[in-house]
């Protein structure tokens, strides 16, 4: 479906260097084991999909990567070094940006302000400079506005930049959320069901944007998605989870022909 939108050069940016390595991750909530001893890596420049039936632990995995959950066991190697236990905002400052399954935009702000919040990790003018709107604060505001405008142009949302987010449609909100994440210029971009609830046209747009981001900025992307057509077309490699365990890992073709994956999705006679 989306093959023709994927440029011929796609894949060139993919390297063999692991940007993030998850080693033997286990996550327990009391007696419930949400993730059971899962290891995989995300390579520099690739689009990595995480798929699996409902309740497989995909979102928990993303929450671990973005620092919202701390794994009960296992460790995360990020940019070659083990990542210590961090608060989520500290993880964000290391270059991890994400979008949310249920849109989590700041409804009281305009699109522009929402996308500008993505730049907060890059802005550090002091409170007095900000209060006086002089020097550093002012220059920072303008410099970051320029970067934000590039993202806004890229995602084609120029016409709504001054619109309060609350007035936008669902599809546009998803796009604004992507803009906010992109504005942070992340090393790794986590997308939690970027196409949930969209119609075919919106899905095609979103797929195009994801591929363009990967292609033009070389951003590494990890995404969760239920639409198999999209996953198979977009991603370079796929991890399949079921009941908190990893049951498949490889290129879309390998995964598609993996018997465990077929069983998990289609069910199997006992």
């Amino acid at each position: 479906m989306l093959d023709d939108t994927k440029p011929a050069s796609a894949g060139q940016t993919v390297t063999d260097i692991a940007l993030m390595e998850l080693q033997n991750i286990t996550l327990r909530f009391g007696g419930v084991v949400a993730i059971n001893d899962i290891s995989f890596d995300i390579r520099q420049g690739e689009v990595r999909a995480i798929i699996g039936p409902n309740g497989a632990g995909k979102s928990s995995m993303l929450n671990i990567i973005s620092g919202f959950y701390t794994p009960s066991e296992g460790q995360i190697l990020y940019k070659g070094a083990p990542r210590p236990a961090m608060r989520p905002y500290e993880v964000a400052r290391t270059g991890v940006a994400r979008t949310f399954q249920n849109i989590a935009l700041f409804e009281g702000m305009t699109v522009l302000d929402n996308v500008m919040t993505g730049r907060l990790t890059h802005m550090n003018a002091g409170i007095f400079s900000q209060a006086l709107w002089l020097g550093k604060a002012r220059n920072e505001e303008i410099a970051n506005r320029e970067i934000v405008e590039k993202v806004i142009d890229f995602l084609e949302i120029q016409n709504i930049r001054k619109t309060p987010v609350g007035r936008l449609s669902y599809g546009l909100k998803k796009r604004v959320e992507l803009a906010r994440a992109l504005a942070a210029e992340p090393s790794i971009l986590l997308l939690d069901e970027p196409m949930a609830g969209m119609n075919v046209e919106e899905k095609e747009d979103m797929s195009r944007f994801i591929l363009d981001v990967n292609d033009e900025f070389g951003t590494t992307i990890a995404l969760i998605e239920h639409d198999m057509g999209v996953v198979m077309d977009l991603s370079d490699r796929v991890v399949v989870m079921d009941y908190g365990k990893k049951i498949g890992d490889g290129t879309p073709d390998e995964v598609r022909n993996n018997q465990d994956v077929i069983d998990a999705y289609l069910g199997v006679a006992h």
Partner: protein
Amino acid sequence: MLYRTAGQFKTSYKADQALFPVKQDAILLGVILVFAWVVFPLAASEFTFQTLLIPILIYALAAMGLNILTGYAGQLSLGTAAFMGVGAYACYKMVTLMPWMNPIVAILLSGVFSAGVGVAFGIPSLRIKGFYLAIATLAAQFFLVWLFEKWAWLYNYNASGAIQVPNLEMFGVYVAGPQADSLVQYYVVLAIVSVMTMLCINLTRGTLGRTWKATRDVDIAAELIGINLMKSKLTAFMVSSYIVGVAGALFVFMWRGAAEPNLFDIPLSFRILFIAIIGGLGSILGNYLGAILIVGLPVVLGTLPAALGVPIASSMVEHINVMMVGALIIFFLIIEPHGLAQLWRLIREKLIIWPFPH
């Protein structure tokens, strides 16, 4: 017709981020400032200064402080009056311990004390939110008023238990105390409130403002995009309490002239919360509109019947006032939860495209 943005093109982001991207807004503000700095002082009587101009400015400043915390950062507070009290008592202690101190410096420094106390009482906000936080700030309210009453050092062990503003001089002019002139006091209040408003506008439209609004709207998402919630909430408490503290010092030193501990009790907290809600949470302009309404309404109600020759007892006026304020709050919560400032915003939008509806 007059309010048109057509032809006002912006060619740089700097111009787009200017304080008044629309020319007419700048002109309107200029007119208001001329009135505030020149026309009112020339025309106003002692009565107008004391019942309208000075209290409106002080209440607006206090509401602005609360608005930073509740409207921008989303942390509900019911302890505003107590933080005002901290500012007032801190100012009183400073000018009595160090009589050589410039009164304006003392007023501005008194905010530092309330900021410290505000941060301390803001710490629960890291774990609790919404109504539960409101109850925690209510604890601050009760505790601090109790402290003002029991800690005799605060009011210099005088028999009455109240603080009395001494005559304070600056460049040979009395600015506070029984001998101070209302005109001078008005200018002091106006200058401080104007500067504070300017700083608040800058803070709320910049990085810090976006941090606060993000914390208010979706705190979990805010943390995941790199906002340190602790820092965001505590700076909100700090800035808010600073402003409220300065408002408290002005309240006693530039207006009331004396204060008992129970002046800073819950009714004052609620009064300021009403101003912020009626004016519009998350707006700077709204604080002024709210203060004009809440302070001005009783004055209008008190003078209008007499002017029209309608005989109404003053106690009746008081009752009508209370009823109207109550009705207005309910009216605004239902009709326009974003307050008077939102009404102004809608009027602006309509004016820009007038006479077309869309």
